[in-house]
């Protein structure tokens, strides 16, 4: 049976009263290693998309380069898999031109905090409405185990075989130091309920929502988060009505800190304290200006544009 494109579309739309399920967003089969934390993040994202009933064609995932940046290929939304470190400028361009689209940015730790560091800082300042996920496994995986800025000091890698030389960069402190940053959170892929709740809060926040997702690499850094995975007492949850509250994990993660995400000084304190790994929304301020709103212009028809351009030419007329 042959149908025109338009008819096919009508048929598909007829069924569209049915809600999107998680499987509506399934793209190609994920090719990450077995045990890679990225699988769980992909699932949490699909759960978020279904929960928010995001229209697949109105949703764009933008990534850079690295293991995590394969993300868009595994989703059935629009995707743009670009170059190393530069996912944020591409995301900014999409959102500036098409503010009606939901735009997600997926980066790794090297992508975001090393080669793309300038864009990371400025994206936080632009505060364009993007949901930004930084999948932090503290190592370069795709290029086979090189030190990244978030690699813990002393970790042996192929580029620093006698142990990495410098203390690891703290992406939360850096993000919280950026003027006009409006949402900074941390979660961990081995706490799926918290991961999902945090991503959902990030999506619902209007502005650049920066989420650092602690993520295990079973091949190159299996030990980095191992003790925190085994011992929940090493983790403290930041809880608040304006942040995330995940009742189903409260019995496991007994250290809970009531933290108002409007309190920037406290957010910086928790970001810098290294006694525990803090998960939750560190900072959230929905009142910060959003660049794409500040720069919004009224669209003009070709005729309107030409009328105004004639006026411009009048100024230069001989």
């Amino acid at each position: 049976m042959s149908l025109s494109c338009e008819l096919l579309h009508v048929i598909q739309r007829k069924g569209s009263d049915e809600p999107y399920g998680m499987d509506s967003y399934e793209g190609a089969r994920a090719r990450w290693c077995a045990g890679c934390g990225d699988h769980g993040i992909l699932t949490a994202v699909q759960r978020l998309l279904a929960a928010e009933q995001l229209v697949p064609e109105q949703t764009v995932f933008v990534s850079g380069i690295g293991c995590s940046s394969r993300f868009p290929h595994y989703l059935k939304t629009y995707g743009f898999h670009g170059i190393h470190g530069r996912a944020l400028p591409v995301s900014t361009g999409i959102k500036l031109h098409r503010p009606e689209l939901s735009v997600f940015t997926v980066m790794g730790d090297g992508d975001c905090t090393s080669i793309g560091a300038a864009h990371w800082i400025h994206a936080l300042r632009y505060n364009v409405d993007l949901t930004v996920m930084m999948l932090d496994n503290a190592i370069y995986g795709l290029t086979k185990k090189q030190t990244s800025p978030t690699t813990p000091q002393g970790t042996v890698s192929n580029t620093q075989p006698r142990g990495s030389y410098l203390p690891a960069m703290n992406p939360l402190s850096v993000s919280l130091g950026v003027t006009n940053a409006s949402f900074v959170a941390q979660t961990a892929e081995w706490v799926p309920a918290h991961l999902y709740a945090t991503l959902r809060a990030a999506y619902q926040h209007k502005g650049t929502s920066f989420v650092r997702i602690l993520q295990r690499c079973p091949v190159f850094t299996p030990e980095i988060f191992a003790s925190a995975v085994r011992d929940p007492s090493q983790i403290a949850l930041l809880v608040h009505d304006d942040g995330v509250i995940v009742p189903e994990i409260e019995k496991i993660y007994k250290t809970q800190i009531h933290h108002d995400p409007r309190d920037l000084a406290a957010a910086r304190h928790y970001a810098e304290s290294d006694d525990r790994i803090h998960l939750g929304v560190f900072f959230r301020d929905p009142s910060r200006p959003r660049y794409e709103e500040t720069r919004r212009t009224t669209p003009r028809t070709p005729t309107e544009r030409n009328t105004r351009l004639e006026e411009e030419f009048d100024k230069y007329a001989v």
Partner: protein
Amino acid sequence: MTISAGTTSAVAPQTGAPPAHLRVREHTIEIVSDSGEGAQKCGQIFAAVSAKMGNGIWTVEIIPAEVQPPPRVPEGASGNRIRVGAGPVTNWGDQTDLVVAFNEQALLARHRVGALAPDAILLIEEMWATSQDPAIVAAWEAAMEELSTREYRIIPVPMQEQCLTLVENPRKGKNMFALGMLAYIYDRDMERIRDQIATAFRKKSEAVYDSNVSLVNLGYQWAQEHIGFRIDVPPAPIDTPLVVMNGNEAIGMGAIAAGFELCAMYPITPATSVSHYLSEVFERFGGVVHQAEDEIAAAGVAIGASYAGKVALTITSGPGLALKTEFLGLAIMTETPLVVVDVQRGGPSTGLPTKVEQSDLLAALFGQPGDAPHVIVAPATIEECFHVMITARRIAETFRAVVMVLTDANLATGVAPYPRPTLDSQWQAAPIDLAPVGDSDLPYAWEEETGLSRRIVPGQPGGMFTLTGLSHDERSKVAYSSGIHQHSSAMRSRKLAVLQSVLTPPVVYGDEEGGDLLVVGWGSTKGAIEEAVDRVRADGLKVSSLHLRFLSPLEPGIKAILQRFTKVVAVEINYSDDPDAPYITEENRRRGQMAMLLRSSTLVDVDSWTRVPGEPLRPGSIVTAIRERVLSGGAA
């Protein structure tokens, strides 16, 4: 009152006597001062009025490297140079015939770079000769000594003294006094001058306008009483509506006419003034100028916007183009349409930030690692700077291509009139198509014959593909099998051949049938090359020229044209080894950039004559090169 240092009767004070009239086809005038004394404003108004009266003009800026250089140093010379012609003027010409200088050091700067004709008339502020500061007097005297080595005609002018009769701070008024003098000498229409002053100072007060007009009148009156000559460059009546602007403004207006809605940029000389212009007006057209955090991000934002909708624009100069390189490869690989304007300056590295050069051609063409076919087009005139934006956007959209537009500092800052465009709504980008995508539609549905494919943008139901910079097949699946990369590379490359097939062959200027020499150029040198060709043809030499707009793909039929001439020389503003320089052989000689392209694509033995003087080529220099070097067999 007036002392004539290099006295000639033509400029001796002739109060009361009728002034001598010099009638010429063209004259080149400079106004030079310290930075901030308004010489440029004077020059701009003089040029605009001349254009409105029906003279051809070509204006170039004389710009110091620093924002506020120290006063009274040659490096600080700032101002304008205006070539005024009885007919159309296509380039800045050779040497300056008349200068108004606000101090002798600015004048010295122009003398030392050889800008002045041997018999140039120099009107110079005389206050420095009688300064209280002995160092200034000594500098003045040394300068006069140096200038006296030529046959200049020097006319000291009491600008300061005269301006003080009207204003307290002549530093802010001499430019209008100078404008008045020029208005007398060249018999400019005072009504138009007043209109132009009103336009130039429209944001300021009535008092500023009145004061400026009084100063112009004073300068006019002083010249009438003390300058014994007038110069007549007859204007021609204007039969078609003209606009007058520089090339960067033309690009900005072209971007609007083409329907661009986003221009992402990072400040860089000499490209930034496009963004200054657009920043001022673009929002009224529904457009946004995004100043990104760096050149790379500017490219990324433009690519993101293009991917999601209408073709976007990024504007830069050589160093910025280098930074954007990886992103340009991504746009080419994902077939995301994009227009990149490169306003070329001298390089490499920081090079000559404010000066013209045509050195980015090969970097623009081959800068991206991997095989990255894309389009390069170079407007040759200020008028073409406007129209190229419409062409570039349309090609980018139709061919899902990156289109680079190469202009240069000469076009960017040169000011000349051109026929006012008749705007057409069809020039503008169509609204993005959000129609659903059919089951058989693919993100790269390459047509085997042409490599062309339809673009799918976010928002189209059914088209949820992920574009990638990885090598991919027509479904955008990552290429894991052999053959995919070969085929997709062919598809991206074939688009250029298809584009070439719809271009028209370039037209020879001179003799289509052939001759002894063909001069080939590209970009802003067109006017100077064709003027040089006119001059040598007038002397009977069988010389023609060919000017290329498309550098990638090259326009069709070039080889056949080149083969009709005994010799072919590419004239460019980039570096090449002179054939008789030490160690230089036929094999190791580095030729000009377009010469290399033409040699490789036509197998014609194209010679190269190039210069990198940090200024536009002078037609006279090209004439000399044609005569002495090329035709006498100085080069292969």
